[in-house]
C-alpha cells in the first residue's frame, strides 16, 4: 500500500511502500505541483532504487527553479537507504526523532 497526498500546510505526505510499481503515480503527483518543497516521510516504510529515482527527478526539477526539496521525518531504515545511495549529499534529509 502506498499513499501520496498534500497536507494542510502544502507539504507532501507519503506513506506506505514506495516500490517500483508505485513510482509512476508518485512522480505524476509531484510533477503536478508547481514547486514541491517539504515532503513528510514519517509514514514511509520502504523504498528501493526505483523509489529513489522519484526523489532524484523531483529534486532536479525543483533545483532548476532555484529551490530544493526537504525530506523530513525520515525513518531509520529508509534514511539508511538514502545514505547508502549518497543521496544525503544531494538532498536535504532530516531523520525522524527516535
Amino acid at each position, binding site marked *: 500500500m502506498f499513499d501520496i497526498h498534500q497536507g494542510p500546510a502544502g507539504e507532501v505526505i507519503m506513506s506506505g511502500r514506495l*516500490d517500483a510499481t508505485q513510482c509512476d503515480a508518485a512522480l505524476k503527483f509531484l510533477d503536478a505541483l508547481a514547486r514541491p518543497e517539504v515532503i513528510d516521510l514519517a509514514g514511509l516504510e520502504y523504498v528501493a*532504487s526505483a523509489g529513489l529515482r522519484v526523489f*532524484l527527478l523531483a529534486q532536479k526539477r525543483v533545483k532548476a527553479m532555484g529551490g530544493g526539496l526537504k525530506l523530513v521525518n525520515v525513518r531509520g531504515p529508509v534514511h539508511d537507504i538514502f545514505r547508502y545511495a549518497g543521496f544525503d549529499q544531494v538532498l536535504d534529509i532530516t531523520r525522524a526523532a527516535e
Partner: protein
Amino acid sequence: MESRTSVPGEAAQLQALTQFLQDFCATAKLPPATTLPFEIALEEIFMNVVMHGSPAGRLAQVEVSLALSDDDLTLAVEDDGPAFDPLALPAPDVSAPLEARRIGGLGVYFVRQMMDAVSYARTGPRNQLRMSKRVTRSDAAPAGTNPG
C-alpha cells in the same frame, strides 16, 4: 526451511513476490529489520529481470526461492531470459553532484552493500542470482545461554 514460487517476469508480480518473502520470514520468526534487506534485494533483482529479461515479446519466467539455515537466509532469483549478469554492471558514483546522478546500477549496488554474499551463474538457459545474509531469529536463545 525452504520455499519457492514462480511468476511471469512482469512488474505486477512484485507485490505477490514481496508477500511470498514476508510470509516466509514471518513463519521463520525473522524480525522485520532482518527482512527489509531481502525485500529490497528481491525488488532490485526482480525488476532487473522485468526490464531486461523479456525481449521480443516473450515473457521470462522467474523462480524465486528462499532457504533458511541455522545462520543464513539465502534468496535465489532464477529466470529463463537472455544471459545477463547484473554483478558485471559498473558501480554507481554515489558522490556525484546532483546533475550527474543516475539510478542505473544503484539497485545492484544496494544488493552488494546489504548482503554478505552475492553470486551469479548462467546455468543452461537460466540466469541464477544467489544472495545470502546472516540472520537472527527472534525466538533464538540469547547468546551465552545454554538451552536445555
